[in-house]
Every structure is written in structure tokens, then in C-alpha cells.
């Protein structure tokens, strides 16, 4: 009898522990995504500052070769293109994580109830 109730207690503990691990894992992934989004925003603002700075320098200097200016603008565009793709990728990742969470919720909830019972 005691061994049986201990087993049941251990099972309930395992289920609770697994649920806690799942919650922590989900929390950590979403936290990392939030941080990546934050730095992506920060990078965009830093790029704006950089653009303001280089344009003011370019405008204050006479005879900047057109080819150099073109190159500068091309690098700027490349950075912004990559940043845009990075933002899209993060958004896609968020959507997929939300979908996974929804799937987990629908598939795990009955299991936990069954296990606990």
C-alpha cells in the first residue's frame, strides 16, 4: 500500500515537474525572442544615427567622389535589407513558437489529467 501511494506521489511529482520544465522552456525561448527583437530595434535606431552622422559629414565635405558616396549608400541599403529580413525571420519564429505552444497545450492537457488521475 505504502509503495503504491509512494509511486502515485512520484508520478504526480513527475507530471508537475515536467509541466514546470515545459513552462520554463517556453518562457526562456520567448524571452530570447523578445531580447532579439529588442536588439533588432536597437540596431535600426543605431543605423539611423549612423546615417545621420555620415550624411552630415558627406554634406560638409566638398568634392566627395560619387563612386564613394554610392558605395556608402549601397552598404547602408545592404544593412537595412538584412535588418528587415532579420525582423521578418523573428516574426516568423514567433508565429511558429505560438503555433507550437497551441499544439502542446491541446495535446498535453488531457495527458496530464490522465497521468494525474
Amino acid at each position, binding site marked *: 500500500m505504502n509503495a503504491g501511494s509512494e509511486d502515485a506521489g512520484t508520478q504526480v511529482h513527475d507530471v508537475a515537474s515536467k509541466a514546470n520544465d515545459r513552462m520554463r522552456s517556453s*518562457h526562456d525561448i*520567448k*524571452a530570447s525572442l*523578445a531580447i532579439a*527583437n*529588442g536588439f533588432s530595434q536597437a540596431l535600426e535606431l543605431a543605423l539611423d544615427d549612423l546615417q545621420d552622422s555620415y550624411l552630415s559629414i558627406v554634406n560638409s565635405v566638398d568634392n566627395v567622389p560619387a563612386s564613394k558616396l554610392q558605395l556608402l549608400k549601397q552598404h547602408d541599403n545592404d544593412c537595412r535589407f538584412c535588418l528587415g529580413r532579420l525582423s521578418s525571420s523573428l516574426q516568423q519564429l514567433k508565429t511558429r513558437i505560438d503555433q507550437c505552444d497551441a499544439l502542446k497545450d491541446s495535446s498535453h492537457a488531457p495527458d496530464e489529467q490522465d497521468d494525474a488521475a
Partner: protein
Amino acid sequence: MTNHTCEAVCSDFHSIDLILLDDDKLTLEIVSWILKGSAISNHLFTDPGLAMDCLKNNTPRILVVDYYMPGINGVEFLEKCVADQNLTNTDKFLCTSTVPRGDSLSVMQQLGVQLIEKQVICDRSTLFKLVDQKLVSKQT
């Protein structure tokens, strides 16, 4: 990085706008970056002990605590804070993307702690909106 993220020693009692406790250094770095140059006074901590020491000398208008931390979870930390300090005028937030279950949830309700997702504090516009709302509501 501002000097507020370096586990500041808070020796003089005063009121500040925001105290954040999160064991994740990257979270502190992005929040620090967002608040850089703003008028929002803040102390950011990764160490719960140092955050607790700071709270002895500072009453923040907003206190944000991460839920999952090594050694002590956010609810346990907030429970200890409320027992030791007068935080009745502080808006207390628990930062997590998942709703705590069981005991933690009922303790949170007793303490008047609100849930907040990490994306809110890592996003420039939502963090400023949150701080503005809370600071304005304190003044009116």
C-alpha cells in the same frame, strides 16, 4: 551601458522610477539601452540579494521581477520584498510569458502583482508606454 546596470550600491534613500531584477544579462542590456538618455531613473540587477538591498533604501514606482531565476523565483522574491519593505505605492510586475500555477498564482494575487511579458520590457515603445502610464497615474 549606464552605470545603473552595474549592481549599483544604493546607500541614500530616495524614490526612483524603475527597478528591474532579471538573471538574464542580455535583458538588462537591452532595457539599459532603451532607457539610455531618457529621464526614467532606474536600477537594473541580475543579483536578487543586491536588488533586495537596494529596495531597503529605494521605493521604486515600478518594480519588475523575472519569474525564473536560480535560487529564488520571482514570486518568492516579491513575497519577501513585500514582507520586508513598504511597497504599497509600487506597481509590482512579474515578468513571464507563462502564467504561474497553483501557489504562486494565489500569492501573486494576494500581493497585487501583475503579469507582464518580457517582450513588453524589451520593446522601446511598450516599455515607455508602460512607464508613462504608471508614472502619470501616480501623479494624478
